[in-house]
């Protein structure tokens, strides 16, 4: 089939039904915007998770009355580990101050004496240290006599990971729903276009056009709808991202120490190609009945 003729006929078809196509593309843009926004949220959540996962931290609580020599021995053992970046000793009074600064506590809690808070060592672990290695370090540290207990915050990160996995599933479901929605809208739009151009299809078939020749322009029209909608959705999302970036960055920076990111270029390309492909698929599904006659 001659591609030039196919595109020329598709262009003529779009011009003839331009109002129908404008409505369809607008509807599809809303659907794609929903999908792209979900993907953007996923990208930023994933970034936060990576950031938190990489900023490994270990808090070692010391026994009451631990001897300074035992604490020093523990400190030397930690410093010998390649994963350890920084060690800070936190006294009971410092711990109390941090507690009171970081939370809005009632008057009774504010009256707590310093000896309620244990001494501890705050250990900063190198980014990218595997969770298994951190567990191994914690187990070895626990054998020291000066150690009351250790907190790796893994359970917190595990929860974040679980949350992200759930968000991923939700994004997948949204993607599926959007795909179904797009296929349905494109199929119905093309069906309307085909119904309005039945005489044209009949003439083509009487003149010896193959199914491929008849189908070609409609596939191009469906793909064009999907592509246009995904382009518009990406553009709207990009504009919203630029406008809202400053306040969002402030929140994310405070909460997670990261700044907002836009969709990865490959994700954008996949969105555009996927939009065109789904549009063509919807078109193909709507044509079968008319080609059979």
């Amino acid at each position, binding site marked *: *089939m*001659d591609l030039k003729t196919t595109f020329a006929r598709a262009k003529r078809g779009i011009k003839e039904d331009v109002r129908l196509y404008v409505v369809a593309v607008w509807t599809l843009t809303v659907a794609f915007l929903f999908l792209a926004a979900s993907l953007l949220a996923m990208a930023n959540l994933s970034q936060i998770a990576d950031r938190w996962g990489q900023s490994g931290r270990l808090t070692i609580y010391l026994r009451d009355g631990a001897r300074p020599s035992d604490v020093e021995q523990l400190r030397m053992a930690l410093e010998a580990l390649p994963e350890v970046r920084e060690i800070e000793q936190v006294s009971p009074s410092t711990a109390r101050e941090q507690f009171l600064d970081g939370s809005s506590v009632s008057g009774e809690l504010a009256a707590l004496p310093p000896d309620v808070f244990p001494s501890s060592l705050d250990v900063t672990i190198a980014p990218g240290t595997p969770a298994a290695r951190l567990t191994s370090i914690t187990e070895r540290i626990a054998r020291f006599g000066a150690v009351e207990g250790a907190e790796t915050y893994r359970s917190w990160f595990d929860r974040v990971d679980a949350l992200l996995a759930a968000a991923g599933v939700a994004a997948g479901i949204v993607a599926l729903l959007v795909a179904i929605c797009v296929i349905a809208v494109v199929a119905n739009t093309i069906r309307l276009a085909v119904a309005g151009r039945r005489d044209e299809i*009949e*003439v083509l*078939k*009487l*003149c*010896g056009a*193959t199914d491929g*020749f008849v189908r070609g322009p409609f596939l191009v029209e469906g793909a064009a709808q999907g592509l246009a909608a995904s382009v518009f959705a990406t553009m709207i999302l990009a504009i919203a991202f630029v406008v809202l970036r400053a306040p969002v960055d402030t929140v994310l920076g405070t909460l997670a120490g990261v700044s907002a990111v836009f969709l990865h270029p490959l994700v954008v390309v996949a969105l555009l190609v996927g939009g065109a492909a789904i549009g063509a698929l919807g078109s193909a599904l709507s044509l079968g009945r008319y080609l059979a006659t």
Partner: protein
Amino acid sequence: MARRSASGNLVRPFSFFRSGQRADAAASNRPILVLENVYKFFRPDVPVLRDINLEVERGEFVFITGPSGAGKSTLIQLVYRKHTPDEGQILFCGRDIARLTRASIPFLRRNLGIVFQDFKVVPHWSVFDNVAVPLEILEMPPRIVRSRVAEALERVGLAGRGDDRTSGLSGGEQQRVAVARAIVTEPALVLADEPTGNLDPHLALDILTLFEEINATGVTVLFATHDHSLLEARPHRLVMLDEGQLIEARQGLRGWGAEIGSDVDVDVAALDDMRVTMAG
């Protein structure tokens, strides 16, 4: 697929119907269209066509006539494979088109020109676009398309009207557009299914003359009509269908009286009935 000669003319193989197949040289000596013992049923036990036998030679002009519902359109539709015969065979250029696969039907139609009572032109297209369709299907280069469309429009008396919107044309002009589309690929056989049915008598005669001019260039024409005045006006071979059966008058309606004396196969009563029915 049709190929082009160095001069840009279509070289049209006849033993084809699938892209790439070669012409059968012997086909040029055979009748262009042969129907043998053809039956067509749309309802069980009520045949629309019954045991139809017909041979059409190359370059012939054949009227197909009969009262409404006699099966004229069905006969034409069998030839361009809108329908498939239930029994018998239809040989077009020696190939049994009743046995064509669905995928081969477009290649059959590329070798036919078809004109209908309701024109079947796309009203919102220009005249040029309507006539150019068969050439675009054959993937002809734009330069050839332009020259061939111009030539076809000139032949039907619409020279210089290519840019006009088809919906703005009169009925007679729209039918001329349909005729131009039918002949633009220089088909071997033109099928006309009541092409004058929507036109006044004067225009009907004009259109008939147009088909005769096309026939004069060597194109075979099957012209279905129930318009008695056209049959009276021209002495072409006449094939009458009545209740699904075929009766022939080789010298047309005007010569039927002389012919029956020499042809015992002609059903005199049926022809007489036909004259009465159609004249009335």
